[in-house]
């Protein structure tokens, strides 16, 4: 074998190793994202997405639209009586849309028409959705009888959430991947005092956070006797979460029952089993 041929083969081998190494790298968190330029569309009642179907804003309107709730219970205040902008039934998807009016200011308590975001019953996908100004919550996992919940937030971004952005009230898994959020309370919270409690999973992969006012993910690293599931615990698996602020990336609580307030869990081994960084 002559020298040139050997050098060529070595080079090919090296490039092969480089490519394999690149392929093995997990997807990085996205960069800073902005809300798409959009046309406002007033919405007076919840949009009910039938099971197994997709509601695609860009496909429906031919452009990016910002949905702004006009009813008094869709203004996007912190009132718990707010109704959702979208109700996703089992197996449905909402994608390519902006929720709320981002032009009203920079505060987190603006009545920007974001309503109570998205409610997911069963298995749902929230893909490439932007919350220009989060209302009561950005999205909430709700229990559907007979179905293990899984809500996947993939792509998109959220801004100006006074409290938590994604709320997990059901069983099953909340997946947040390839996402950007800025000026939020918490990225996600497993319900601390729901009337029916579950050991839940939260998976965060490839997420970039700007300003966080409370914490990254809030989970119940243990449950007390009032919860009905004492001995069980949530697990948050966090991979490639980019955040340089001072708040905790994962905050642990003792889950409890309805009518009680969850307290911080200070037990180190509980926290270690529940906040898993990969």
């Amino acid at each position, binding site marked *: 074998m002559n020298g040139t041929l050997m050098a060529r083969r070595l080079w090919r081998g090296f490039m092969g190793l480089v*490519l*394999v190494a*690149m*392929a*093995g*790298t*997990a*997807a*990085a968190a*996205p*960069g*800073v*994202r*902005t809300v*798409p*330029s959009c046309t406002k569309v007033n919405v007076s009642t919840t949009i009910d997405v039938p099971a*197994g179907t*997709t509601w695609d804003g*860009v496909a429906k309107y031919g452009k*990016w639209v910002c949905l702004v709730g006009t009813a008094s219970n869709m203004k996007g205040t912190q009132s718990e009586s707010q109704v959702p902008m979208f109700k996703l039934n089992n*197996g449905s*998807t909402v*994608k*390519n849309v902006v929720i709320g009016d981002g032009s009203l200011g920079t505060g987190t308590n603006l009545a920007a028409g974001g309503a109570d975001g998205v409610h997911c019953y069963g*298995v749902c*996908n929230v*893909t*490439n959705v932007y919350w220009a100004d989060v209302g009561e919550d950005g999205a909430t996992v709700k229990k559907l009888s007979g179905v293990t919940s*899984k809500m*996947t937030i*993939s*792509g998109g971004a959220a801004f100006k959430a006074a409290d938590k952005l994604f709320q997990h009230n059901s069983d099953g898994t909340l997946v947040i*991947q*390839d996402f950007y959020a800025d000026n939020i309370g918490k990225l996600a919270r497993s319900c601390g005092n729901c009337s029916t409690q579950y050991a839940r999973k939260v998976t965060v992969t490839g997420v970039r956070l700007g300003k966080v006012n409370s914490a990254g993910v809030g989970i119940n690293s243990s449950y007390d006797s009032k919860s009905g599931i004492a001995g069980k615990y949530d697990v948050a698996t966090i991979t490639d979460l980019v955040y340089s602020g001072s708040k905790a990336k994962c905050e642990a609580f003792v889950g409890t029952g309805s009518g009680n307030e969850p307290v911080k869990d200070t037990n180190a081994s509980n926290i270690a089993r529940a906040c898993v960084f990969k």
Partner: protein
Amino acid sequence: MKKNTRQLALLLAAAAGLGALALGQSPAEPAPAAMPQAAPSPVLQMIGLAAPSAGEARAPVPDAPQLTRWMDQREFPQAVLALQRAPLDADTREQLLQQLLARWAEAAPEQAARWTLATPGQAHLLAPLHDRWLQQDPRSATVFAGGLPAGPQRQALLEEGLLRWTAQDGTAARDWLRSYAPQPELDEAIARHASGDELARNSPFEAMDLVARITAPDRRWQAWQALARNLYDIDPERVLPLLAQAPGLLPAERARLLDELR
């Protein structure tokens, strides 16, 4: 995008106004464009938006109407460079810059992207420009990213582009992916798209075809596992007949996947 222009003009006017207050003077009327010899206003001089002094090798810098004119005439590079020189506070500068970039990305995104790459010190603007470009034309933005020199920047922009293109126009994005030979740098975006619930539900054969294109064996196997799980959750009865038609999936691998579902 007239609204953006108005906001930009208002912000600049506000910045100029604040500067004037600090000097104890009224804001000067901006000089009309037809008077090139007019002396720069003290306000504009103070915030660094006055014309350069003799010998300075830099582009002329704008007052608010000038900036608006530059945007209307698509003279974006001058506007960006002038803004960067202006001694504004960081928030105001960033706000103005984002609006300029948004306008530029809407008017001439590829020109904007090429300018950031070709102009020293401006490479950091490529990502925010690309973000805007993806919102309006994910295909062009992704194809542009694919043409960049190999490296971390191309990988990041290509992945971001594919994830957003597949969300906005999955059919076109998948056609584009299939027009290329399998490539390692496309693996992650393909795996995420192909192993998602929506594609498994609506186009399971396309999902399987995509998974088979993933070059890294470990990542491909993870994607098969995720896809099989989704197919099972959607309809357990259909998993076996679907996986039996999966391209490139060996019988032993199929059996292993089915075992893992039980």
